[in-house]
């Protein structure tokens, strides 16, 4: 896939929403080890709201779609995840030219702006054991990629995110409730980073499925 139009993007976001909601038990389990175990609940709440908003409406632009996705998460989740993950979805479209279809280059640029917005808002840097540890390498992998294929760019992003998740096991938490654990949080992966990986993996799977259907 060289470009994705608004309608396809909506289908992809709905696919991602289902995947994240299915992952709730796994996210809860991951978060319980060093957090308070509510990350999965928060993500499920957020993506249920996303499904409601997206299902009930038609969108003209990719911009609107991502903005509404972000707002749905922001107004339903609460917690640090609510702010940070909604920013991941709507931070990148701020100031972006309205468009009803997007290529991999523009998408990578959008995600880089999202990353910037997430870091500005949340204050976390690479190595702080947060979702940034997965989002930053995923965005870097997307920016590097020049091949123009969506299935491929999301696969690379997911792979980079997964490596980022693995790396969080080595870090001591600097943010959120796991922070008070400090060194004791070492050895466990970060739940927010895990969610970022799930999101990119789902995007990749949606593209691969779509390409297979069209082939």
């Amino acid at each position, binding site marked *: 896939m060289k470009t994705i139009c608004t309608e396809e993007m909506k289908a992809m976001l709905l696919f991602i929403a289902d995947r994240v909601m299915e992952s709730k038990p796994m996210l809860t389990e991951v978060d319980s080890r060093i957090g308070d175990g509510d990350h999965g609940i928060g993500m499920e709440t957020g993506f249920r709201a996303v499904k409601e908003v997206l299902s009930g409406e038609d969108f003209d632009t990719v911009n609107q779609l991502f903005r509404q996705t972000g707002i749905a998460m922001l107004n339903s989740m609460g917690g640090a995840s609510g*702010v940070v993950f909604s920013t991941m979805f709507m931070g990148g479209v701020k100031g972006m030219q309205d468009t009803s279809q997007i290529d991999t280059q523009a998408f990578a640029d959008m995600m880089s702006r999202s990353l910037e917005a997430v870091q500005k808002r949340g204050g976390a840097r690479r190595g702080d054991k947060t979702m940034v540890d997965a989002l930053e390498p995923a965005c870097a992998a997307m920016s590097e990629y020049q091949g123009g294929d969506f299935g491929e760019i999301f696969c690379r992003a997911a792979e980079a995110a997964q490596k980022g998740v693995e790396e969080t096991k080595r870090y001591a938490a600097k943010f959120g409730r796991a922070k*008070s654990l400090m060194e004791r949080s070492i050895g466990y992966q970060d739940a927010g980073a895990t969610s970022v990986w799930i999101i990119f993996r789902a995007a990749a799977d949606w593209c691969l499925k779509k390409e297979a259907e069209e082939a």
Partner: protein
Amino acid sequence: MKKIINQPAAVPEETIEGFIRAYADDFEKVEGVKGIRVRTPKDKVALVIGGGSGHEPMFAMFVGENLADASANGNIFASPDPNTIVQTVRSVERGKGVLLIYGNYAGDNLNFDMAAEILEDFEIESRTVRVWDDVASAPKERITDRRGIAGDVFVLKIAGAATAAGLSLEEAYRVAVKARDNTFSLGVALSGGTIPGEEHPAFTLPDGEIEFGMGVHGEPGVKRMKLIPADQTTDFLLEKLLEDSGIHRGDSVCTLVNGLGSTTLSELCIINRRLAPLLESRGIGIHDMEIGSYITCQEMAGASITLLRLDEELQKYYDMPCWSPYYQKRAKKAK
């Protein structure tokens, strides 16, 4: 975990609905969001508190006379979203600004900060006081990393009185900061709390073991040991609190023994029975003692001790009567 609930996700909303039905003369729900407000906000600086649901009666139900004007409530153990906070503030703000008080957690900080930015667009001035009383949650050098626990009660009590007394936003903020900076808590956990609808507790402690400094969401504490009698537990808690706070002979304090949810009032009273003579023997004056489960964590077992060091000003606001269904103070009797 057996619980009397309907849909787990509906717990915060249905809790508010039931509460409002009982106290509809005094409170109403903020339209469209999980907020509770006093029916008739006074012409003063507004005081709005907030936090995750599931810590009842804090935060939702600490609204009332000379207390908070409104509370913005999130999902279970998750901070409220910015829209909930903004709508809640707008429902009680009377043009004199709003003082926002909440526990110092990443989620609350992010959402309240975002809300404060949005309030600027509505030309509502705000000041923020984050409560960080839990001495176990970070060393003193990183005090802004400490969590807010039962100390919320005292900071909110003082701030409620200060805004009710007609102080300006700046002055009320100054007093609330002073209360926050003189509030210190330390707790002990016996067992973990649960998230409604989840099968397993969010965290567990081995049989027969307790943990000092454990957070109300199961954040690990500073020392785990075999269960010891109440007196020794109290000794340990107070020792650490005095060491950290620097409260000493000649100081005057208010105390709160707070239960975490499933610990009984008798256990809290037994802690308090020991606490009083311990303070007296050290020459620390006891202005007031409170016992109650004000900030809880569902079925969590355990308790904390909070000390509020008073000066003349803080004492004046502490002594002002206040009322909410689960926390109230009468005018102090002359000794």
